[in-house]
């Protein structure tokens, strides 16, 4: 398996992931953002609207483009990590190995920070705490990535000592669950939600955000897996004319 091919597949799969994410952003997330902006506009203190740098229309278009570019960038990064990790990932096929890596990526980059610093719509964040929240968010991802590596190492270490696969896998999952629980207990809570923001708005926004990110990582894993499997198939059976 050539690295340059994997990279090409990653960029293409990332582009599809970006388009998927941008579509869900436009169709699912934007309506919720509009509801949040209405809450913000209703505030008497909402004076900084006069010094707006960009229009709402520009924000929507640029937001969609940003989601698309982020998809491509993640696709490229995914290809590099997959190339390095391929021979160590569990799974009988390349599609299976890609799915495992995409699931780990979604858990580390999306689900874990969604638990410690959940996504919030506009009108919630306190500008004074954005640096602290960003650090907690990045720290969560870093801990998650280290934990994923540690669990793989633990799996290999136990492999030589525990005879039965089922026992080993159970031990590794329990270890991961204990570590995540500890992380959630240790992490301080982010900002409180202001009283004028309805709970339904927060819930809808977080679900929409997770849906968008699931679309991104799902498309990335599916398309990359398909392309890599296609390449494997042509290598196995060279031109069956």
């Amino acid at each position, binding site marked *: 398996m050539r690295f340059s091919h994997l990279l090409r597949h990653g960029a293409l799969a990332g582009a599809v992931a970006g388009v998927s994410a941008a579509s869900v952003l436009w169709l699912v997330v934007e309506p919720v953002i509009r509801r949040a902006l209405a809450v913000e506009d209703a505030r008497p203190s909402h004076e900084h609207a006069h010094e707006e740098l960009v229009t709402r229309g520009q*924000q929507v278009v640029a937001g969609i483009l940003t*989601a698309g570019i982020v998809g491509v960038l993640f696709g490229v990064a995914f290809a*590099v990590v997959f190339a*390095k990790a*391929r021979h160590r990932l569990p799974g009988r096929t390349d599609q299976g190995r890609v799915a495992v890596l995409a699931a780990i990526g979604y858990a580390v980059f999306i689900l874990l920070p969604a638990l410690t610093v959940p*996504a919030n719509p506009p009108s919630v964040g306190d500008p004074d705490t954005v640096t602290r929240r960003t650090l907690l968010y990045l720290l969560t991802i870093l801990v998650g990535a280290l934990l994923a590596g540690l669990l793989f190492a633990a799996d290999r270490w136990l492999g030589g000592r525990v005879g039965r696969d089922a026992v080993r896998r159970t031990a590794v999952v329990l270890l991961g669950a204990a570590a995540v629980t500890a992380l959630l207990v240790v992490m301080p809570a982010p900002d409180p939600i202001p009283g004028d923001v309805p709970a339904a708005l927060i819930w809808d926004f977080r679900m*929409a*955000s997770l849906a968008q990110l699931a679309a991104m990582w799902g498309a990335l894993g599916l398309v990359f897996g398909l392309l890599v499997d296609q390449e494997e198939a042509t290598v196995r059976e060279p031109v069956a004319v």
Partner: protein
Amino acid sequence: MAAPSSAAATPLSPVVVPLWAWALLALALFGVYLLLQENGALLTQAQAGYLHELTHDARHALGVPCH
């Protein structure tokens, strides 16, 4: 005996990852940082503010902490 029953029939040989691939990985992650996280650590306040407002909807939607 610890035969890993989940292993593939033929062990996979590692893919040769060239050195520049790691630079590319760093560049991709840096791009994600610029688009989603930059709030004035690298750019001037004015530039960062403009970038922040421009990428605002995507930052919120992608779950990144935002103002």
